């Protein structure tokens, strides 16, 4: 965390970025990263949700930013990046509000699962194997989110339906 904080400090010194995290799984990472970032910065949260109106569906912001980001440096803080679809959506959505810049930091990265490359991912905590993780804010069907540390979850610990997917 200190290494991430130092890298971000070096790039954003004097610029007071806005750290934006999607709820809920990035909340713990956001807290620790904020405390490890020794420059002034703001914090804001978004929450994504799927919607459908019967014929069409899409992803929308269930909870939007509390403040404007026009002219600000935005740093998206996310727990895991794999396909990049969610991060691409967030990057695209926030870029429409004319921030000075949009970049992203992730705790865990699975670059070999990437489908979308234009996601502005600049800082990576750990590149991890294609396994499931829980704790430290990451939940599996809302279980284990509150565990203080990050845990690898073996397939045999999951319900049968999830095991098929694993």
């Amino acid at each position, binding site marked *: 965390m200190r290494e991430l904080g130092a890298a971000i400090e070096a790039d954003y010194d004097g610029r007071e970025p806005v750290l934006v995290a999607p709820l809920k799984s990035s909340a713990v990472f956001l807290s620790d990263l904020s405390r490890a970032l020794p420059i002034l910065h703001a914090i804001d949260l978004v929450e994504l949700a799927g919607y459908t109106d019967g014929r069409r569906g899409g992803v929308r912001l269930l909870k939007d930013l509390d403040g404007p980001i026009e002219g600000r440096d935005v740093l998206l803080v996310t727990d895991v990046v794999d*396909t990049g679809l969610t991060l691409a959506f967030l990057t695209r959505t926030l870029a429409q509000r004319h921030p000075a810049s949009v970049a992203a930091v992730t705790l865990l990265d699975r670059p070999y699962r990437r489908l979308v490359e234009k996601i502005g991912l600049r800082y990576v905590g750990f590149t991890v194997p294609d396994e499931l993780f829980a704790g430290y804010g990451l939940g599996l069907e809302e279980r284990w989110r509150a565990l203080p540390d990050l845990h690898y979850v073996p397939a045999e610990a999951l319900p049968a339906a999830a095991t098929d997917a694993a």
Partner: protein
Amino acid sequence: MRPGVERAVREPGYRKPVRSDTHRFQAYRGKEPPRFANRIELECARILDWYAIPWEYEPTSFVLERDPQGRVTRAFTPDFYLPDENLYIEVTVMKQSLVTRKNRKLRELREQYPDVNVKLFYRRDLERLAQLYRLRLAS
């Protein structure tokens, strides 16, 4: 169209397509209405569409082998093409440990068409995205 690449040709054993209503898709960039081979392909299309990622369905068949007369004996048709990413996607419902055959085909494709970018999209990827939005996926 590059040499060796042909419009989609259904391979023997092609399963009954899954109907979809094209007008539901906002990011679909193909000309013909997509007829998916199975439910998981439909789910994948929906996910791409949800994120407004432009996509096409089976737009290209890549010839892998021809007989001495030049007739196509083996081809590979990736399920999706993302034009903005210049990326082909092959969807698999199988466990990652059981996708050896598909991987072999992908490897052949990469050897014969090194400039083509193709990736496998596992059910696990869909499950992770579905969990995020509490979607119910077809089993």
